């Protein structure tokens, strides 16, 4: 089931469900594709998120009422889980106490040693639930219950680009230097910043991400900075 609501003078938002799940992300991905394929020329932007899809359109080409009707038609078509698998993006991470600003605290809180912690964080294949906060910032889920931790009470003013963080059941890599309240557990040597313009489109909602643990030497060899 879905419902369509007004989002702005040339945008609507489609609600697909009440809580996020991999199945719902897959569904949103399917209808996003369908709508952009079919209505591409009148669509300006699509913004998928955990349970929703926002769509903005050219209001000189179609009215709100008419656009809702067209979108509804596509939403009423049966959902077919995609046969082709989504992208898998691999990100090397150095889980070191010298770069993971909150790693020590998380080890204490979770009563785990470093190897166990790395194993728990790096073994799942994470799903990109949403992109936002800043460009190319991918919200990944779900983090194993043993290593979850809420956001910091006092967000940091500056988290270096490449930092890998945890907030509750989500994990993410900060693509650019930014302020933020996530618990930092490691660092990727890979440049995910927009200095390389290909990085903007590296992640799409519905993609999958794996973290590959690397040691300090590998981190440095790959251009990592301490």
């Amino acid at each position: 089931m879905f419902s369509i609501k007004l989002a702005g003078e040339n945008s609507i938002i489609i609600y697909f469900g009440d809580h996020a799940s991999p199945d719902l992300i897959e569904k949103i991905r399917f209808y996003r594709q369908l709508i952009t394929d079919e209505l591409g020329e009148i669509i300006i932007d699509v913004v998928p998120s955990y349970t929703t899809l926002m769509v903005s359109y050219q209001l000189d080409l179609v009215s709100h009422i008419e656009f809702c009707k067209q979108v509804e038609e596509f939403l009423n078509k049966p959902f077919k889980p995609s046969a082709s698998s989504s992208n898998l993006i691999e990100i090397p991470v150095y889980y070191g106490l010298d770069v993971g600003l909150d790693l020590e605290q998380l080890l204490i809180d979770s009563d785990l040693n470093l190897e166990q912690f790395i194993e728990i964080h790096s073994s799942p294949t994470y799903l990109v639930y949403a992109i936002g906060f800043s460009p190319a910032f991918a919200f990944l889920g779900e983090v194993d219950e043993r290593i979850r931790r809420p956001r910091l009470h006092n967000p940091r003013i500056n988290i270096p680009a490449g930092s890998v963080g945890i907030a509750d059941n989500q994990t993410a890599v900060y693509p650019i230097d930014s302020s933020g309240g996530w618990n930092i557990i490691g660092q990727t040597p890979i440049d995910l910043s927009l200095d390389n313009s290909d990085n903007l489109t590296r992640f799409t909602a519905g993609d999958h991400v794996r973290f590959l643990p690397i040691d300090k030497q590998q981190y440095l060899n790959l251009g990592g900075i301490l």
Partner: protein
Amino acid sequence: MSFKVIKPGFLSLVEDYGRFGLAQYGLSQSGVMDEHAYCWANHLLDNHFNDAVLEITFGGCELKALTNSSIVVTGADLDFKINGKEQLLWHVLSIKPDDVLTWSMAKNGVRSYLAIKSGFQTKELFNSRSVNLREHIGSKLAEGDELLSKIDVPEAVQHAIPSHFVPDYKQDLILRLLPSYQFDQFDSQQKQIFFNQRYTISSASDRTGCRLEGQGIQNVPSTMISEGISYGSVEITTQGLPIILLKDSPTIGGYPKIGTMFSLDLADLAQRQSGSKVIFELINIETAQKKRNDFNAFFAIN
């Protein structure tokens, strides 16, 4: 080459109509804060609607002309002068090498727009020349920068705007709101508080959002699942106060939204100083679309 920056001012940014088609990757719309002043500036020069201009906030800016060109300055009255002489705003002006252009202080409004024939030729990043400091895309004007433009032979024709289109930025502002997103989840008492008060624009406002001060709405849910944010979305924070999300806002967010502003009222809002008063009233989608379509048609925006 057309200008050398002598003083960059408080915040001077090259902006165009905005960055579109990449919101799914988290890129803000960006672009000029006052579309009315911006569109008139380009229109008077027969520019394309998307040509890049300089958005000068509060003033403190000084530029030296290096070439002949036609320019227009619109928007806020920041005491704009050429070689120390006051100049008309909303009016095509011819400048020549060594002319010194200054915007010293905010007399009426906040943001002044300097448009030049064919637009400033800064580097396009992700389909737009708009600088977005929050996203580290481009940078603000700095001393010694050179602003490039195409070679121009100034025309004798002196286009100017009909005076009734020149806004007065000192009046209280009525902000027209579309009942969107979680509008129905606010009860009648909460809506009464929202629509029946004059809010004050907070000094903690910027290109990302305009914060309003006033009586808070009680019992607003603190967060929801993050969802796509459209330009002009009015979030209600945990304290019950509105934040109107503007051009540099993130693409998704988790505060409940009581509605979305009609875009052209945001142009007027962009010129209100902190301490100014605003009131909300409702507008329906048909009216909003008609008004915006008329605006777009007039300025050949597509």
